């Protein structure tokens, strides 16, 4: 053997890697498989020379050596061991269309599920038994009818197209739907499961969803029925065709039969579609899960409705309460405002009265201060001027300032003192920009 060339590079040794003498054993190889090598060719001879070392092996060694060897050849014996119906053995080959091809080959428990390999093995097994030469050897009449039936069955079943045609009308694989009564005894899933499994063989789409059981989810069940209501079937009915006359003599007759066959096929296909639809309808009607889901849905809907109503009620109540609270608040507020207004009015009046009183005091003070006239009775012009000025001051000040002024003036009898108070007030007002200098002449 030439050495193996590897063009991809080895990895760089990681930092810190260490091993005794630069080698680390990590794990052993997986177990090996014992097989026979072929004792052929020059390389085998070299192997044999090395392995024998001139030893001699015995018959026991042979058995010992072979115990674990992986087998390559299949045992010819098949799993096919169906009893042969004596009536079936008497069939005539010319009636091959009516025969159950699977039963003829002894694989009626497999039917559409039989693999190509199974069919071939079954065929071989039957041929070994029923070949006319075997019958002759057994001293039986040289009757090759059943042998021909076997050949026909194999011919049909090994041809994918013809097998489908036969499988389409293979009643042996049909599972009759259970009656309502049977179903209602509580075996819905088992009984109908088989029906759908059998019907599923016609589906172009594979795998076909299973009926499931009471634990299946709503999605699964919906998917199942959707699948079956949209079933895409390859089932055909030409196997049941009437034979078309083979001779070329009677072309009209031939065409007539062909047309008849076409129509019959179409009719059967339509009927089959309807049959399947009804079957699915029936199953659906009996399927407790549908009711369960509907109830659950109902309950769900009801629950939602009740919740909605409760919510509405709650909202209405809340709104009413809110409204009430608002009304109350409003009433309170109004009452308070009214009271306030009354208070304010009172206060205003009081203030007004106080102001009036204060004004009177102020004016009286003017008189007490002899109208700011120093020495002797004040001339009328002075009186007017003083009174005007004080009134002017009063208009310039608010009630508080007036009250201040009043309190400063109260009990004061000394004209100079009073005059000074007024003068200070004028001064303050001028400072605050409320009066102009010299506006109150009598106090300047």
């Amino acid at each position, binding site marked *: *053997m030439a*050495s*193996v*060339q*590897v063009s*991809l*590079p*080895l*990895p*760089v*040794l990681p930092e810190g890697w260490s*091993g005794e003498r*630069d*080698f*680390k*054993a*990590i*794990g*052993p*190889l*997986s*177990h*090996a498989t014992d*097989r*026979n*090598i*072929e*004792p*052929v*060719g020059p*390389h*085998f*001879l070299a*192997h*044999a*020379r090395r*392995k*024998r070392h001139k030893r*001699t*092996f015995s018959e026991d060694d*042979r058995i010992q*050596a*072979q*115990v*674990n*060897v992986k087998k*390559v*050849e299949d045992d010819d014996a098949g799993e096919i061991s169906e009893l042969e119906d004596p009536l079936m053995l008497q069939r005539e080959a010319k009636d091959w269309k009516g025969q159950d091809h699977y039963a003829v080959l002894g694989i009626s428990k497999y039917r559409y599920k039989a693999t190509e*390999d199974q069919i*071939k093995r079954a*065929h*071989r097994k039957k*041929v*070994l038994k029923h070949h006319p*030469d*075997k019958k*002759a*050897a057994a001293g039986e009449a040289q009757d090759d009818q059943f042998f021909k039936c076997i050949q026909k069955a194999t011919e049909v079943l*090994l041809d994918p197209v013809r097998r489908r045609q036969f499988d389409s009308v293979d009643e042996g694989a049909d599972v009759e739907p259970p009656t309502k009564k049977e179903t209602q005894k509580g075996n819905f899933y088992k009984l109908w499961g088989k029906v759908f499994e059998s019907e599923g063989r016609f589906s*172009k789409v594979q795998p076909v969803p299973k009926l499931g059981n009471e634990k299946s989810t709503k999605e699964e069940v919906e998917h199942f029925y959707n699948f079956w209501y949209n079933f895409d079937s390859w089932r055909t009915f030409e196997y049941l065709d009437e034979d078309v006359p083979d001779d070329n003599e009677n072309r009209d007759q031939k065409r007539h039969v062909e047309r008849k066959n076409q129509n019959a096929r179409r009719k059967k296909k339509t009927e089959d579609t309807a049959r399947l639809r009804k079957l699915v309808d029936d199953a659906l009607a009996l399927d407790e899960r549908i009711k369960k889901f509907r109830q659950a849905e109902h309950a769900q809907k009801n629950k939602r409705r009740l919740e909605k109503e409760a919510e509405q009620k709650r909202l209405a109540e809340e709104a009413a309460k809110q409204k009430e609270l608002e009304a109350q608040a409003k009433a309170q507020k109004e009452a308070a405002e009214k009271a306030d207004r009354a208070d304010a009015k009172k206060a205003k009046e009081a203030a007004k009265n106080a102001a009036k009183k204060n004004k009177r005091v102020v004016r009286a003070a003017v008189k007490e201060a002899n109208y700011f006239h120093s020495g002797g009775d004040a001339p009328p012009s002075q009186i007017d001027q003083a009174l005007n000025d004080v009134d002017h001051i009063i208009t310039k000040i608010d009630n508080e300032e007036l009250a201040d002024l009043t309190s400063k003036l109260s009990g004061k009898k000394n004209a100079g003192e009073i005059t000074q108070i007024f003068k200070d007030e004028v001064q303050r007002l001028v400072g605050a920009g409320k009066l102009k200098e010299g506006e109150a002449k009598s106090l300047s």
Partner: protein
Amino acid sequence: MSGENDPAQRVAIGISFGNSYSSIAFTTGEGKAEVIANEDGDRQIPSILSYVEGEELHGGQAKSQLVRNAKNTVAYFRDFLGQAFKSIDPTPCHQSAHPVQAASNVAFKIRDTAEEAENTVTVSEITTRHLKRLRNSASDYLGKDVNAAVITVPTNFSDAQKSALNKAAKEAGIEVLQFISEPVAAVLAYDARPEAKVADKIIVVADLGGTRSDVAVIASRGGIYTVLSTVHDYEVSGFKLDQVLMDHFAKEFIKKHKAGGDPRENDRSLAKLKLECEAVKKALSIGTSANFSVESLANGLDFTATINRSRYELLASKHFAAFARLVTHAVEKAQLDPLDISEIILAGGNSHTPKTASAIQNAFPETTTILAPSTSPTAINPNELSVRGAAIQASLIQEFELEDIDQSTHPMVTVTPHLSHAVGVLCISGDESSGIFHAIVDAETSLPVRRTAIIATPREGGNVLIKLCEGSRHIKVTKPEPKPKQERDSDDDDDDYDSEDEEEELREKTWKVGKVLSEAALRGVKKGAKIEVQINIAADLKVNCIFREVGGKGGVRGLLSGPKVQQNGSA
């Protein structure tokens, strides 16, 4: 050993003994196998004997007796040898002498002497007579008395069948040195060619013979062959292909001669039809059309017609498809993928038919080489594969004592442990999740084994890590981008198929890194240097390895102990 079996006196040939045809070959002094033609000039000698007034006809001459003398013509008997009458299928003998029961064995009732009376001749006796004729032809050709042979048999030939054949051969004066299986003989025929290189590969031998088809998947590891799986099918055969042509020409005949009747319903017409159809089938292997011509096919009416190859291919398409399925099935049975198959050797006469090869080519990726006359100019004649392999094996062992051969082919020698996984190195990265596995020893390699690999190093050289692991082959499937769904037109009958091959997925062979076995370091590797890794795996799965720089000094050695012995004692 008795004197007559003295290896020094031996003249050994290879014999392929088929149900339909047999061949004989010898190996020249230069070690080249040559197929011997018999006195009729045939290298494919029909395995048929016929008796006419006490005279024995053989091969092609006997075959032509199928028309006039079917009752006294014995054909397609190989598979009956060593079998109980109840376990044989007499179907192939419908048009020749029928097998009958003799004790629990198989025999034929024929008039094989000049006498009127029929004799019951056992299949063993028939075989002896057939082998005698083959032996005579070989002796005549070689000018030496042939007295030994390696004979090829199907992989499912039982010990009882072999022992019956051994006895029949002995009666014919032939000492059987060894029985070797037909597919392995075919592999040997290819490997013995001077230009062949020993390599590790998986080979499928697909044999489409006259009465059956056989497929074997074989691991070829350093010139050691291990059969991984086999499939046998008696429904897919050359007979079926002949039948297609027979039905075709019978219908043509009926169409042309309305009053001629169906030639399939008369024994003699049927025999003529069959012989001519086989000839037409063979002609269509080379030509693109062939003539059918039979004098007095039925009711004294001659019939000639032509057929072109594509018509034939169409008529027989389901048989080619069935054969291709069988080959795929055998690969599955070996738990392999079509991508694992390096070569498919097409054997058996019907492999001359171009469609046989193309049907198989279509079922396999482009990386699989199909060795058939129509696909490879250097292909060996499919009819001669077995006999060439047998002749080569005969030349290899003819000097041994029989006892020696027996001991060398003893299960103590042939049963060996085979690796369950490939063993190789991790490249680029030492991390199992990102490193790339490269196999050094493939799975299904017989132990003990030694393999060497030369591996590149990082660009700068320096210190490298050599990590040995197990690897398992993994098929990576990439689905193509889903195409925008085409508008579904009203007739949806034919869109299933088209859409399927349009969206062909991409399949690639990759490796999954398995168990890590060991790590080793080589330090200070020169820039651009290569590393040599030598792996020795013993029968007890102990691993002994050596790592060194090519052309450098020193190196690292490592030893790995085998796994614990399993409960049941197998290693």
